[in-house]
């Protein structure tokens, strides 16, 4: 860490005479990985370090970054060029250093290539108990990440965290065609619970010989946590203060109003104990805090970074996020939806009849600004009285996400991980299906 701070200081010194204010961010990742297929597994390891520089010069903001070999003066040179065409600087960098701590006291010593390989072999065996011809491919990466920020106004902060990123894919030849399922999730210091993984991973794969049925019209639709996560993309964009500042947020003027169904409480939790996106401060050095975005369907508030806060006359909510060398924007971290206190896990029983969406192939026709969505679902399952009866291929769902989420029929009683989100199953009424 000492070496990292010295490099950061060198970059700041190089900026002194050419900028009004400057800010340096540094990232270091040390990881191990395993690529797993039925025919082989390849262990890997690595380290990468990168630096990002953001500078205010002549009233404009410029950014750039370098991964690997760093040359402070080359980096400064590039940012000077970027400042010429950057956005106007409507704010100053913060002066007060955030609390620096370790977000997760995660311990990765128990995770070795052997333990991960054993876990994946066991998972494959469990899957093959149910589907003997299924093939599992996976990539697991576990890492220790360190983050540093310092600026010319005196702010300095750092933290480290551990993360485990797991991507799993199952393919299964069947009479109904070649079936596939994928599941990606992030944890902090251990592999995901195998039973939970099987719940979600095998959900799109049914080989019971169901009939091919038609599903057209307005239907009750149950979204799995993975599918729900994609549906929430428009909400993630909608709560962004950047969209509000651009005058394009569909939630403008809705603070304190009922926007979604009253069964829905959505939170952004950057302080979540085992959240893979948890951090004590955001990418501008502002302390993070847990926030309710929708409280029983009532829209609470927008997420802001320093830029959007300045444009909207608000305070930063510690929600800045960015890739190294890019401009900041307000982002959600660990997005969670509260599960229901009672009821079933997958909501099929409460829903009665409808279709179950287990995965979404693509969301090509969506518009974050309006909340409209068009989701190609591939194969969906039709159910009646909570029992799956058949499937339909090539299903497309469309509508407006805020309208759809205002008609919540039921919410599942437990949360599953999807990426860094924690989401239950959700049942929505009146979704257009074609």
């Amino acid at each position, binding site marked *: 860490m000492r070496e990292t701070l010295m490099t950061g200081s060198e970059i700041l010194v190089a900026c002194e005479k050419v900028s009004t204010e400057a800010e340096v961010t540094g990232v270091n990742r040390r990881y191990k990985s395993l690529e797993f297929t039925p025919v082989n597994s390849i262990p890997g390891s690595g380290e990468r370090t990168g630096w990002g520089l953001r500078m205010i010069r002549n009233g404009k903001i410029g950014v750039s970054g370098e991964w690997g070999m760093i040359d402070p003066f080359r980096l400064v040179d590039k940012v000077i060029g970027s400042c010429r065409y950057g956005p106007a600087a409507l704010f100053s960098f913060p002066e007060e250093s955030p609390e620096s701590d370790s977000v997760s006291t995660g311990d990765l010593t128990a995770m070795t290539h052997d333990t991960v390989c054993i876990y994946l072999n066991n998972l494959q065996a469990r899957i093959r108990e149910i589907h003997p011809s299924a093939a599992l491919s996976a990539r697991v990466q576990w890492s220790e990440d360190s983050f540093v920020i310092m600026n010319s106004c005196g702010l300095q902060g750092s933290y480290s965290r551990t993360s485990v990123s797991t991507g799993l894919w199952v393919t299964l030849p069947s009479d109904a065609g070649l079936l596939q399922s994928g599941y990606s999730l992030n944890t902090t210091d251990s592999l995901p619970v195998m039973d939970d993984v099987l719940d979600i991973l095998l959900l799109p794969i049914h080989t019971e010989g169901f009939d091919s049925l038609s599903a057209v019209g307005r239907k009750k639709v149950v979204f799995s946590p993975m599918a729900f996560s994609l549906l929430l993309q428009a909400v993630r964009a909608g709560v962004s203060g950047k969209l509000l500042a651009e005058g394009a947020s569909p939630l403008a003027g809705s603070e304190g109003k009922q926007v979604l169904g009253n069964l829905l409480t959505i939170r952004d939790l950057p302080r979540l104990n085992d959240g893979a996106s948890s951090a004590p401060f955001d990418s501008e050095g502002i302390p993070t805090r847990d926030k309710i975005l929708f409280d029983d369907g009532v829209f609470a508030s927008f997420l802001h970074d320093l830029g959007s806060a300045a444009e909207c006359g608000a305070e930063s909510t510690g929600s800045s996020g960015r890739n190294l060398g890019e401009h900041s924007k307000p982002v959600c971290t660990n997005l969670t939806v509260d599960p229901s206190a009672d009821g079933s896990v997958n909501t099929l029983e409460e829903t009665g009849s409808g279709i179950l969406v287990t995965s979404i192939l693509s969301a090509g026709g969506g518009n974050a600004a309006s909340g409209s969505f068009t989701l190609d679902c591939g194969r969906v399952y039709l159910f009646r009285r909570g029992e799956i009866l058949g499937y339909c*291929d090539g299903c*497309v769902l469309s509508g407006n996400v805020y309208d759809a989420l205002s008609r919540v029929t039921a919410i599942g009683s437990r949360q599953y991980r999807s990426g860094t989100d924690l989401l239950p199953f959700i049942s929505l009424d009146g979704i257009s299906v074609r």
Partner: protein
Amino acid sequence: MQKYRDLAEKAAAGSEADFAELRLVHTSRTTVSHAGLTHLNNGPIEQFTGTARVLIAGRWGICEFSSPGQIHTALDRAAALAIHSGSHPAPFPVLPPACRDTYSDDVNGVPLADVSLREKSFLCKHYCELLGVSVSTGSARVTYDEIIRDRVVVNSSGTSVREIENLGSMKTQAVLPGGLVASEELALRGSFDRFTGREKHIAEMGSNLLARETTTCIAPGRIRVILDPELTGILVHEAFGHLVEADFLENNPAVAHLLRAGSRVGSECVNIVDDSLQMSQPGSMKWDDEGTPGEKTQLVSSGRIVSWLHTMGTAARKDARPTGNARISGPGRAPESRMTSTYMEPGKTPLEKLKLHLDDGLYLKGFMGGATDMDRFSIAVQEVWTVRNGIIHKPVTPVVISGRVTDVLGLITDTGDDLRLSSSLSGCSRRGSGAIAVTYGGPHILISEMQVS
């Protein structure tokens, strides 16, 4: 990069492993986007990465490093991982003849890196304003993305190749208040010149979007259609190409059996190739990420499977030869069998004649999004026109086409004479791998029956 290449050559030659390979990549990426009054530029962001891959007693180990000074340490770490790996031993990879060469894009015109950020920013703003005016109440966005990549692959069998790529892309998008979208990406390899002078095209894109505004929709069903070259390419890439990637097939023996050489997957007029050597396209590679020379690989001939896409590793396991399709989606990753420039070869029928053959049906143009779920695919179409008696009639609202690949390829009854290639800088990602640049295309094709929703 040359001095790092020399270092890597010495390190690989001195390795005691059964096989050692080093990949060094320096990338500079710049993004400029303009939408409404908002202008944003990210970068240039520079990245140096290295990956050491070692084979010992049939087991692989990989180590990523971020400075040339770590080459030897990375080789040692990769060797240690290989030695302790519990994997099944893999056969020794099929190595192409050792090659030592360098290729740099032969840029006729102004290289991307020589154009200032100011000019790129101005061009995005200019096109965005032009498109904004042409769609009046709609909104417009123009994004320019540029990747300058210097890639070195060195191995212990004497191969040492270096390829310098200039990849650029300009995405143009307009949205009407009702949600109707026009979107296109011009991606190329080489000079900046093709991004300039597009005013007429941009204005036409806007006016075409306005002309397509309609509330008329068609009932879902199985319909006769003509696909434009972009959609043909998407169909070939998404619905077929991913299925002949050998690393997928070796994990799925039942599918491999169905797609063995000689199997019929399409009608007689279906001929599909993967051509790494389309050097003006971003999907091209003079050498792949294992140093194997790129080539034109016939995948389907007269509707029957000819070959799969191979890396050195899959070729060894399948008793085949590498086809120059080993691609990595990021540092520290093992090479995968991936497509480069994949397209359907053209036939002899002009478009006007295809429309007459269609008689009544739909003319589908432009790609909006889509994916493949193994042998099923789902593609959102941007532009849909009804055809009556072989003449374009009127626009209808966008649709999604779907189906199973072998069904659809078998229903292609005629192919046009107008091959056109499209590309995307980050157009292909699969099963958790990062996005890579690909090229896809084909002629207009006539399909006798397609599920349209």
